[in-house]
């Protein structure tokens, strides 16, 4: 795309076919938060934040919904909810992902197994539900569609569970951009694999993607307090992560990363060659890197907080230059900034309590604006007065987080605030071709 705000990643350098056994290419730019490398990025000021929000009985209409917030400081409605779109019912909605052209947003529900596709290109300020996928379990045998990572013309989906026993064994699935099933593969159980899944992150420069692992429906739908007292349930968490060949969609290597490795991110810095995750139950940072022989290896490089207190590291957000990373710890509601300039020796250099609980974090491309939301899972969020539900926006100057605005999602009768994605209003100035018949004379004049 050519919008001033939307930038495409630089193309790969041309290669000579005759000698191209090994492909060489150009650098990659940074991500705003956790977008697929195939999705165009917003490099400037994001205009909108979509918040995928769990419905709560007795709060507003009680339905799961996509909430649109104006986040451009120059706007009259800055810091306000400008649109909400209920999808009907409560299905334990969780994460969202942008399509390869940033014109559609896919959102999943971990309990109902529905996948909602929103048109966010025609009018970004007023998303429209254009399709609901209801055949995910039937087509794949998996349960709990979690992450949505755009690949060209299609969406890579990582679920959490399976329909057979609602445990943690699962796989990966692909649907095309029309929302039609394409394929699915089981998570490996060979080579040390436990078959569990959670998130995925793609590195096209290496023709690989990395997946992590969490737990199945039986656990993520259970009350957290009950689960932690259930010894058997606590054994049913993923302890592995897997490197896959992106072209063949086959596993390359299974890594032992005990304690539920959750979000995975690649360094976006040119020339870098590492990925990172954190383990929720063991409170570790793990870095994946190729050794001198080109084989992928993993190493736990640091400890987050006091693991004995189970701070529960959840979402992470790596900076554009990959020199820093936000790590949220849910239980103490704290955002922690880690210096990643040496990824093998990261250091926590800042922390701040955001609320009674904090889960997701998304930062702007330049890292100057950081957004936090509160909800982890419907049955895992804290209770009573500690069940704060919010979107909080901060300005980050490299030394301190300064609150820019906050929205109380209960006060606004919205629900539990979960995953976020950014959007630019500029897309609306790139008029869709099919609404531009009146532009034909203009086009003729411009010649």
């Amino acid at each position, binding site marked *: 795309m050519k919008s001033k705000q939307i930038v495409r990643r630089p193309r790969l350098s041309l290669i000579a076919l005759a000698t191209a056994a090994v492909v060489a290419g150009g650098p990659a730019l940074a991500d705003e938060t956790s977008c697929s490398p195939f999705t165009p990025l917003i490099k400037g000021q994001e205009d909108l934040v979509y918040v995928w929000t769990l419905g709560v009985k007795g709060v507003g209409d009680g339905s799961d919904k996509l909430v649109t917030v104006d986040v451009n400081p120059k706007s009259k409605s800055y810091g306000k909810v400008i649109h909400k779109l209920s999808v009907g019912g409560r299905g334990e909605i969780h994460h969202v992902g942008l399509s*390869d052209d940033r014109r559609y947003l896919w959102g999943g529900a971990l309990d109902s197994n529905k996948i909602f596709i929103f048109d966010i290109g025609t009018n970004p300020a007023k998303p429209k539900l254009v399709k609901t996928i209801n055949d995910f379990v039937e087509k794949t045998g998996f349960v709990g569609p979690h992450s949505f990572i755009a690949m060209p*013309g299609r969406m890579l989906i990582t679920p959490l569970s399976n329909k057979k026993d609602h445990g943690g064994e699962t796989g990966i699935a692909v649907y095309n951009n029309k929302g039609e099933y394409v394929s699915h593969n089981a998570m490996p159980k060979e080579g040390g694999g436990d078959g569990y899944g959670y998130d995925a992150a793609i590195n096209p420069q290496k023709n690989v993607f990395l997946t992590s692992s969490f737990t199945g429906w039986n656990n993520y739908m259970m009350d957290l307090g009950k689960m932690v007292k259930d010894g058997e349930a606590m054994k049913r968490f993923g302890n592995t992560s897997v490197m896959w060949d992106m072209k063949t969609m086959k596993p390359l290597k299974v890594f032992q990363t005990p304690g539920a490795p959750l979000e995975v991110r690649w360094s976006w810095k040119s020339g870098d060659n590492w990925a990172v995750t954190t383990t929720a139950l063991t409170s570790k940072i793990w870095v994946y890197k190729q050794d001198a022989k080109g084989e992928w290896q993993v190493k736990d490089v640091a400890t987050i907080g006091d693991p004995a207190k189970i701070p529960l590291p959840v979402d992470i957000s790596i900076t554009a230059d990959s020199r820093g990373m936000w790590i949220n710890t849910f239980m103490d509601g704290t955002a922690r900034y880690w210096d990643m300039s040496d990824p093998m020796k990261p250091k926590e250099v800042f922390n701040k309590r955001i609320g009674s609980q904090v889960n997701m974090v998304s930062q702007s491309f330049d890292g100057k604006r950081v957004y936090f939301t509160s909800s982890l899972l419907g049955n895992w969020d804290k209770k009573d007065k500690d069940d704060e539900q919010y979107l909080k926006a901060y300005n980050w100057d490299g030394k301190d987080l300064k609150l820019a605005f906050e929205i109380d999602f209960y006060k606004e009768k919205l629900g539990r605030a979960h995953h976020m994605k950014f959007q630019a209003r500029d897309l609306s100035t790139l008029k869709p*071709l099919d609404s531009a018949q009146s532009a034909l004379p203009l086009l003729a004049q411009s010649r």
Partner: protein
Amino acid sequence: MDFTPPSPGSYRLERIQAAGDGAVLDSAGKRRRLAEFTRGRVTLLAFMYASCADPNGCPYALSVMHQLKNELERIPSTRGRVGFVSLSFDPLRDTPAMLALYGAQHADGRHVPWDFLTTRSRRELLPILKDWGQDVGIEVDRATGKALGTYSHVLKVFLVDRRGAVREIYTTDYLLPAMVLNDIKTLLIEDGLALR
């Protein structure tokens, strides 16, 4: 970027979607069906417009297709089994006559036909774009609202098997000549062609 693409025939390309059909014009101005170009052979199809100047867009796809064509021309057994299509999404300016001139610069060679197609109108073009999943926007001057004569689009190149199924889709970061070549060979091997 550094990896060795998996060797041809060592992997399966999934059926992603059906290749869309629609009424098109060839560079002689003759009415044709798009399906005529995407059945019975392996086809590499790119949406484009001739005046595109974005180095990461249509010109990049064109250069990659050139490299692939040159390589395939060296494999005589691919004759009649592979074809290229460039389909314009700018029917106002990319007339058949215009594309005949434009295509003449690119479509030389003996074994691999390269057709440059357009449509009679946007009315006939739009369902094709929708069916294939190619986003195209008219770029306008924000101050005046006037069209700038350029289009925003995420570059997409489609690999279609001989039964008319899209088996791979490439955007700019994924359009790697060596990998596309192996994908084409993989489909040819699937059809029983012995490639050496």
